[in-house]
């Protein structure tokens, strides 16, 4: 098999190189720098096969992507943390105009003070911007999902963020099954979308409108994004035929009789997955797609297994409320016949999650009254 040893960041870049994009726009920021650096190396060796533009800021990077995508080009950029925050206004302009863009975001805490650890608050702070968000748990997933994201984004005319943890994934070297460039390009094919401004199409060029019209555009964007799970599943069925791997919008491992499950997204999901055989009485729901939020799938898996307690690993915190994945889960399941108790483990600042912590969480869950929120640093 064509395995190569690469980091998560290099896997994202390799996926872009094998997809056949028209334009890569680059501005570096730790811990994402290796993505644009790897793409720049491909370009220097004449192996990128598209335009590579270095810009003066993240804001300019996304503006440049927007312009090219509006003209019908397949585009990619990558960022992290403060870079993503700096893009914030353009992030809205891109989804509002309904252009397909794929952007990798490598999770890193947003300051102050400066911090490089992988808090998910950067991407989660863009929750309501009309971008799809998919969280990856390792380099193979980063490679595969980045390729798939182009198809998803182009079919729905909505931009897509491919998200993964800084260092724990971006800087982890591991074996990745990488298809030849031709196989990648054959799978994705040329861009299938057309940038058309015409009556009835939600695509627009940032003109001025009234709320009475805007509500239709917002509704169209919402309804379209709700189709993402179905499109993602179709893409994965095709991906499996070609590459023998596939992903769900959520993936669950719940052994028979197990009533307590962890819900995690990104690198922590893989730590939980590895720990399950040793923990014995626990399951995992890996949350891969965060926007749109997979309410229906979560409800059905929790009901099917009669899950009593969900322990949510949140490497983030919405100040004044708590972990964001836990909030979203609670609102998705509150009206189930027997909604599970939700416990939120907050790993804000991107702190590490270890097997020992998972063991302690489970032990306390058995011996204590239900506690809604716990901080990772307080675990014994």
């Amino acid at each position: 098999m064509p395995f190569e040893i690469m980091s998560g960041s290099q896997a994202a870049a390799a996926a872009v190189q094998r997809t056949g994009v028209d334009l890569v726009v680059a501005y570096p920021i730790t811990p994402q720098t290796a993505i644009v650096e790897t793409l720049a190396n491909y370009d220097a060796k004449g192996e990128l096969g598209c335009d590579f533009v270095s810009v003066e800021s993240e804001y300019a990077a996304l503006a440049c992507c927007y312009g090219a995508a509006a003209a019908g080009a397949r585009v990619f950029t990558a960022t992290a943390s403060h870079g993503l925050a700096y893009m914030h206004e353009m992030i809205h302009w891109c989804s509002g105009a309904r252009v397909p863009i794929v952007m990798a975001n490598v999770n890193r805490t947003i300051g102050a003070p400066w911090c490089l650890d992988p808090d998910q608050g950067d991407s989660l702070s863009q929750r309501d911007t009309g971008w799809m968000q998919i969280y990856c748990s390792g380099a193979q997933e980063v490679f595969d999902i980045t390729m798939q994201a182009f198809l998803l984004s182009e079919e729905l005319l909505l931009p897509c963020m491919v998200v993964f943890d800084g260092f724990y994934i971006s800087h982890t070297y591991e074996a990745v099954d990488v298809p030849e460039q031709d196989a990648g390009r054959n799978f994705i094919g040329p861009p299938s979308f057309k940038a058309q401004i015409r009556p009835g199409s939600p695509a627009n060029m940032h003109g001025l409108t009234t709320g009475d019209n805007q509500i239709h555009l917002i509704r169209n964007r919402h309804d379209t994004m709700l189709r993402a799970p179905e499109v993602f599943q179709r893409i994965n069925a095709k991906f499996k035929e070609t590459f023998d791997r596939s992903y769900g919008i959520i993936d669950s491992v719940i052994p028979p009789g197990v009533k307590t499950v962890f819900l995690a997204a990104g690198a922590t999901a893989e730590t939980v997955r590895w720990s399950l055989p040793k923990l014995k009485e626990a399951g995992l729901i890996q949350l891969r797609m965060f926007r749109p939020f997979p309410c229906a799938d979560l409800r059905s898996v929790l009901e099917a297994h009669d899950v009593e307690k969900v322990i949510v690993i949140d490497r983030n915190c919405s100040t004044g409320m708590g972990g964001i994945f836990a909030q979203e889960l609670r609102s998705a399941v509150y009206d189930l016949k027997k909604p599970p108790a939700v416990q939120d483990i907050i790993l804000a600042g991107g702190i590490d999650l270890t097997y020992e912590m998972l063991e302690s969480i489970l032990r306390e869950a058995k011996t204590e009254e239900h506690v809604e929120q716990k901080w990772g640093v307080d675990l014994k």
Partner: protein
Amino acid sequence: MEEMFEFRLHGRGGQGIVVAASIFVEAVFHDGYYARAFSLFGAERRGAPVTAFIRVSRDRLMPRSRIYQPDYVVVYDSSLAVETSTAGLKDGGILLINAGESKGGNLFLSTVGDSPYRIYAVDATEIAWKHKLAIGSFPMVNTVMLGAMASLSGFASLESLIKSIKKRVTARIDANISAVSEGYESVKEVEGLVT
């Protein structure tokens, strides 16, 4: 569940421990193991302490956490703090340090004192100088340490290391191959304290 072996590497920014870790991952993969290596550092800067973690297993699935109870600790620079470097090293675990006859390694070893570990040393700084592997006054010890690590752990053959170096190292390939071979051959157990 397959057995998993954990390494923690302590060095300084610019010594190449990240590159060494990626070469190691590739070499052990070639020899039939999965491995994962990642590093932690602040904003990249030469001379600052850098930590890298490597896991090796026959199973592709491994946790994505830091390593607190390693089977192997590898110290690239003996001026690093002893307590930080050896924290959590398992009883009977292996401590490999870059130390030579006349270098600061003696001080490092005397601080370790009587330990439940097995201690090995390789004079990586001397070997790096010998092969003129340096950036200015900064010796590049990574390939020497890599050879010693592979030799002690047995997860990668010298042939696989050389193959991986040829693929992943872009400069001074011959010198690096000599360095990795010398590290592989010359690492030795420290019998009591070096005085």
